[in-house]
């Protein structure tokens, strides 16, 4: 480590990440109480938990939208472009066990971002359909619960992988600093994200 730090994530990016994370954990917790019979029995108060889950979902999406609208939109657009584009090194990185040089995001992080964005939309859509279907049978699909639960299972797998890389894996856990205070060690950045030119 060089002791020299470079900025990896802007304040808007970090706010977006932590708002997303906070909303996800509230929804996961309240959702599991609704979903797991053992928790449903132990905790009860289903009508209240249902309300918490529903309004947390609405609040989660609304907060994400607000961060985008009030934050550095131009910066986010640049980030979205970075996440969208995969070059030959990204494909090599994915197929060759993570050895090709990478930009600010590696190819796995790009995929994770795309999946998370898609899941947010699908969670919202299936959650609203569950809520509406209870009130009007026109919104009822037999597969809505399968989709909502399936998203939860896949999200959990992604979350466990994400937490492992961010908190435990020695080679990558330094990245957590970038998401908390914004800056990462310049040497670490050079080793893991060689093609990224940090802003001066």
């Amino acid at each position: 480590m060089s002791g020299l730090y470079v900025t990896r994530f802007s304040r808007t990016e970090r706010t977006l990440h932590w708002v997303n994370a906070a909303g996800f954990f509230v929804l996961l917790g309240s959702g599991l109480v609704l979903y797991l019979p053992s928790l449903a029995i132990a905790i009860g108060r289903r009508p209240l938990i249902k309300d918490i889950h529903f309004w947390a979902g609405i609040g989660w999406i609304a907060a994400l939208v607000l961060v985008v609208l009030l934050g550095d939109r131009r910066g986010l657009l640049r980030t979205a472009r970075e996440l969208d584009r995969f070059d030959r090194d990204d494909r090599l990185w994915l197929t060759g066990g993570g050895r090709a040089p990478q930009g600010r995001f590696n190819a796995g992080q790009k995929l994770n971002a795309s999946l998370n964005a898609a899941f947010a939309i699908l969670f919202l859509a299936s959650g609203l359909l569950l809520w509406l279907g209870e009130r009007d049978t026109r919104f009822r699909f037999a597969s809505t619960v399968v989709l909502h639960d399936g998203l939860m299972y896949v999200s959990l797998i992604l979350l466990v992988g994400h937490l492992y890389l961010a908190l435990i894996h020695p080679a990558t856990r330094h990245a957590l600093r970038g998401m908390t205070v914004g800056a990462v060690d310049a040497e670490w950045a050079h080793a893991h994200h060689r093609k990224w030119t940090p802003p001066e």
Partner: protein
Amino acid sequence: MEVDAPGREHRYGRAVFLGTVAAGLSSLFWGRSAWSRVSGELGSVEAYVPLVPLGGWRIYTVSGSMPHFDPATWRLAVGGQVEEPTSFTYAQLRKLPRVEQVSTFHCVTGWTVKHVRWGGVRVADVLERSRPLPDAGALEFVSMEQPYVDYLTTDQAALKDVMLAYEMDGKPLPREHGAPLRLIIPEMYGYKNVKWLAGINLVPSEQLGYWEQLGYDQDAWVGHSNGYGSTPSLPASNSTRGVFTR
């Protein structure tokens, strides 16, 4: 070299995003059948590693706390349009002719639990002592979980696999499944299968039950109500009265 030069970029990010959203939304039309095929294939694994909690059951309640069954104080009251209102203790109920059946439980929200083994009594055996009056056209099933209530016509309640279950899969009915007694009508969605039964009242005709007041269908035929399928395939009339009278 032009084809895959280092600088050449592909917009995989948006492809993954759009593809995932499209697959997810379209799964509203194929997700359930795909999942039942997968879980069918994995049936042998499921015996060792539960893939979904509690064998696919979900526990729905409408009030803040789950009713508690006390064998000393619990009674099943039978009243309304009957010659003689009666009530059963749990022990008395267990002495009535016992029936057993295996049936599939369908929830209106889309989940299903197959091959559930119920033990209990037929509705007619519970009503017998009270002698329902001829003008009773429906039964009101009152739950200990207030304000849950639902109704069946006397015809519907007389379908051959309708029962009052006090056992599930060989054990006393667990609390979360409606201990000590729940209604089972496999032809209809779960919201008709009233849990935590406290009373059965004979009434002239059906009223709106708990979920019906919130817009669910009065006749909850599986696959033919609540926005699924088309019109009822089974007799849904309350034209014939007095099924339980002698």
